[in-house]
């Protein structure tokens, strides 16, 4: 462990955190502009050219706002909860490879902060920690709505974590490794989204629930829970929750891009390794736009339906997809995987549709 290596780590972590925080700020702007365009508006365009200074203005506003702490709140945990929420969102990004090794100042530099041989497990472990911040925020506010919102969202996150974890499995099986770089390199001719489209769909849906985004934004259901677990938060503490949500969006999009959409792979990346980060960035932006687009399109799902969907639809389908992937690998017939899993996916869709129609019929 020489000091140059440590210096390299420090620099890479600093760059990563800087990129995530800037990305968070501009993601809020991107979301507002994109939502506005979908709703045939223009969106924030006053602060700076094209509204590019809007995040700065928002940040300044939040810094100077008064911070309130409820009198009956648990002061320690109330202060700790936003921090506990932000940290996992930031350290989650450590295992994402941004490209092949490049030579910089005569050193071989790998473009990921940590190249673990259990990278996928690391993601699962850290994302399971993220529940704490929300539970603690809800509990420590000493507010009924906040507690309900916190409990709801943690139940939701735990439930969808199972489907999320199972959605990792096809990628692990196909790449025969838990190391993120190996998973990316294994997608050389075909991205995993082609081989396992249903697994990708499950991953993306579970991801939405995991980061509490619409149409799964139950914990923040304004109409029912007056904004849920962060009801009592204001000023910088609120900003931290906000930051956690958006940083998590970025990170989870980059994970999805890495696991299923070929990560940093793209035309010409073999000759110019510096294209890798660019490709990954483009894929992340497209996935983020997808999240925003879904938010603009679909209404929020009722809470019991949400849990039923997670446990009764997504989890069995994820199990089936895992089984199908293993089967295709054992039989050495990779073409079998997309065919069978698409059939399973369509079967699930049809069954859900039928169940819903029957329910509607029974009510009428």
């Amino acid at each position, binding site marked *: 462990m020489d000091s140059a290596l440590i210096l390299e780590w420090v620099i890479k972590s600093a760059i990563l955190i800087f990129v995530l925080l800037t990305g968070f700020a501009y993601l809020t702007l991107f979301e507002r502009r994109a939502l506005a365009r979908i709703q045939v508006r223009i969106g924030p365009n006053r602060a700076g050219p094209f509204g590019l200074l809007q995040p700065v203005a928002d940040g300044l506003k939040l810094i100077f706002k008064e911070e309130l702490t409820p009198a009956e709140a648990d002061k320690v945990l109330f202060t700790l909860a936003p921090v506990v929420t932000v940290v996992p969102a930031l350290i989650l990004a450590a295992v994402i490879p941004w490209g092949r090794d490049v030579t910089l100042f005569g050193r071989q530099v790998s473009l990921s902060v940590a190249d673990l041989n*259990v990278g996928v497990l690391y993601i699962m472990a850290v994302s399971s920690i993220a529940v704490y911040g929300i539970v603690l925020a809800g509990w420590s506010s000493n507010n009924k709505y906040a507690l309900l919102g916190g409990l709801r969202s943690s139940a939701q996150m735990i439930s969808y974590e199972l489907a999320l974890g199972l959605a990792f499995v096809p990628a692990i099986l196909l790449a025969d490794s838990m190391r993120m770089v190996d998973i990316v390199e294994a997608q050389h001719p075909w991205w995993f989204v082609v081989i396992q489209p249903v697994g990708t769909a499950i991953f993306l849906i579970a991801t939405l629930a995991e980061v509490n985004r619409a149409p799964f934004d139950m914990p923040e259901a304004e109409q029912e829970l007056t904004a849920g677990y962060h009801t009592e938060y204001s000023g910088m503490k609120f900003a931290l929750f906000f930051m956690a949500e958006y940083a998590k969006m970025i990170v989870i999009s980059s994970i999805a891009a890495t696991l299923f959409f070929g990560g940093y792979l793209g035309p010409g990346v073999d000759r110019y390794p510096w294209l890798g980060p660019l490709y990954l960035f483009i894929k992340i932006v497209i996935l983020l736009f997808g999240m925003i687009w879904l938010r603009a399109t679909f209404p929020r799902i009722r809470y019991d339906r949400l849990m039923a969907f997670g446990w009764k639809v997504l989890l069995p389908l994820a199990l089936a997809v895992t089984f199908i992937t293993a089967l295709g690998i054992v039989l050495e017939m990779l073409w079998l995987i997309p065919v069978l899993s698409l059939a399973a996916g369509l079967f699930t869709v049809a069954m859900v549709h039928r169940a819903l129609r029957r329910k509607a019929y029974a009510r009428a």
Partner: protein
Amino acid sequence: MTNLVLFLVLAVVAVVTALGMLLSRNAVYAALFLVLNFATVAVFYILLEAPFIAMTQVTVYAGAIMVLFLFVIMLLGAERLPGTEPLPWQRPLAIFLALVLAVEAGYLLFARRAAGGMFASAAPDFGSPQAIGTMLFNRYLLPFEVTSVLLLVAMVGAIVLTKKEKGGRE
């Protein structure tokens, strides 16, 4: 040397968090101290070149089990319940027994030198997911399957226990 310092610091954290769990009045704080304790144990696993076990530790203990604990505490509102007085002879006896256990362990460790020995440098793929997976699905296949049955039984048991036996259903 770095490793020793790291070990000592983490050991202090582990013991302090365990004591915090033992002594805190509020059950939520106890649960949080235990989460910290599990996290330090996970770091120990990484130091012992068991990254797979370390990540599983965080996912299962911190991510699932302790969240479940917090859930139950918050649902029941059991964080600060008025406790009854323990039996008068129980507390000294408990401390005495714990001391006996500690002395026993210390005797076995230092007097008998039962498990002296330093770590050799490990093989590069020691503790890798592949190695553990191969082991799990070959030599330990039967225990693995039994565990899955156990989990199923636990799941059914938990559901049966918490289901409300109210009238009105059929």
